[in-house]
């Protein structure tokens, strides 16, 4: 019930297009989004940076894991290499694949958080 006055204010200022939107908690976010074109450009930059990071790391996985079936098919001799008495495909798929995936995930979390910190610093400005 407490958000009814907020809704009245919102509809008067932002016109019909926002009427369907839920009032209340969203309003701070909406104001940030509708502030300026610069704000919009900053958000686009953040999305682009995060997407580029995700795509780059998934290419690492495609190269590291996704290429293996092709490699085994093109060069069957790879499958006969033995590491400590175990054939290489078993070592790669049964063991090494898992730490590799965790390592890529760890790198992603680190860099994605750094991107967000940079974004926050720009939005907040020097006083923050």
């Amino acid at each position, binding site marked *: 019930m407490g958000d009814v006055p907020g809704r009245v204010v919102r509809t008067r200022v932002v016109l019909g*297009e*926002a009427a*369907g*939107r839920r009032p209340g908690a*969203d309003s*701070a*976010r*909406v*104001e*940030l*989004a*509708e502030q300026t074109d610069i*704000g*919009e450009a900053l*958000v*686009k930059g*953040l*999305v682009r940076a*995060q*997407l580029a990071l*995700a795509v780059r*790391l*998934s290419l690492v*996985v495609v190269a590291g*894991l*996704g290429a293996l*079936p*092709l490699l*085994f*098919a093109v060069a*069957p001799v790879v*499958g*006969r290499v033995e590491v400590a008495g175990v*054939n290489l*495909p*078993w070592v790669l*798929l*049964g*063991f090494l*694949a*898992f*730490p590799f*995936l*965790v390592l*890529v*995930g*760890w790198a*992603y*979390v680190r860099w*994605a*958080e750094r991107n*967000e910190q940079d*974004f*926050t610093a720009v*939005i*907040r400005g020097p006083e923050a």
Partner: protein
Amino acid sequence: MNPYVVPGLVAVVLITVGIGVYGLRFARTTSDFLVASRSVSPAWNAAAISGEYLSAASFLGVAGLVLRYGVDVLWYPVGFAAGYLALLLFVAAPLRRSGAFTLPDFCEVRLRSGFLRRLATVFVVFIGCLYLVPQLQGAGLTFTTVTGGRYEWGALLVGLVVTANVALGGMRAITFVQAFQYWLKLTALAVPVVFLLLHWQADGRPAVTPPAGPAFSSATTVVVQQDAVLDDNRTVHKGDELTFAAGDPVPQVSSVDRNDGLGWLLPGGNASLFSTYSLILATFLGTMGLPHVLVRFYTNPDGASARRTTLVVLAMVGAFYLLPTLYGVLGRVYTPQLLMTGQTDAVVLLLPEAALGSGHLGQLLGALVTAGALAAFLSTSSGLLTSVAGVVFTDVLHSTHKTVRDFRLATVLAAIVPMTLSLYVANMDVSRVVGLAFAVAASSFCPLLVLGIWWRGLTDVGAAAGIVAGGGAAMAAVLVTVMGPPLHGWFAQLVEQPAAWTVPLAFVVMVVGSLLTKRRIPADIGATMLRLHAPESLRLPG
């Protein structure tokens, strides 16, 4: 019969119900039931997600596939784990920030379309059932293998325990139950495997792929499961008992497909490049579209913690998947009779006693893996039921004042169909159906989530067209595979492993459909993108 099995199973059920009842003390409002009031710590949450995810297909099916087919099927565990990396890279944080609790919610938040929401509901229920039925079946089959009792009792017992637990405790209780069950499942595979490896070492490391083909390690009596022809042209009938001495070769049985020797040891044994890549695509991209996985992300307090939770899940799930492969490999030495009966999914259950003998150690470890298998059925079906019930509750019942009683009704409704189906469709192949559920999820919700989160141009019409084309094609392929006649040749590959063509189809249709309907891009797309990608700390001024 092993005297430790029944006390072990009873203990798992009692602890599950016990934690559920304990959780009931916290579950007061409907919001407690649905999202655990978002007060679950990342460590608990990651263990709960992992516990929920490691189903019968992971606990029993992977080892069974390795026993039967060898190195080619290692892509199943790798893909099941890698799915969480794809989820982490493209979905985890933005999905949490969207505030969506279910996939239909996400459609509403991102595209503001009621039609798309209903379409997503259909797919959630379909994928949920497709995944739930084999869990209950697996429970029934394990029950038969271990106790000799009737299949129906096992399926019904697990179904009822799960329904009661979800209806009474909701997700808060389920979080603790699932976290407990992750550690139980890990222990249940990790402890016996240490003893098994020591035993194999003490045995003088018998060869896994002897040059003359697999051989019995001890005197064994095999009961034939189906009429078939052996490789020495002997005809055998269902129920025949064949006796073999230690060292005898394991005959090929015409009714059981398997790889031997180099075909088992080296890649390319029986899988074509197409079906391998199709499997990779389905498992890598399907995880993010499984309804019971996404629901969990709402219990993280913010996007950054959703990301960290996913990383912990990746590590936990990866650690688990190191183990089933070892069971499959050692099963080649100690339980080769499964290659004749075709019941390779039972290798995890039978291996401890087969290798270590039926003394106290073998029996105790046998009971431990059986308890772990029960945990696998219980946790995955609880998670699935919670998410399907959540969708039924919000999108089908349309209850205006959402009460706890309505959620309980939704749970019972969501449980009836899969439980009934599991009684009547006993012959469906467990691990294959689970793989097909991944293919449907990868061809419907994966493109919706990835394009919805990263591309401003997605429209409701484009999204719906992509889901209908890709997801619908995958759904049709699933129905043909499960219920249709046996297929042959390249067409069979296209239908049995559909992801390699249905996933690209869904993406292409979604993009083209959106480009053709540019006018329908939501007017508040800028605000939505900000909400999905900006850190929560920026939402409030100052």
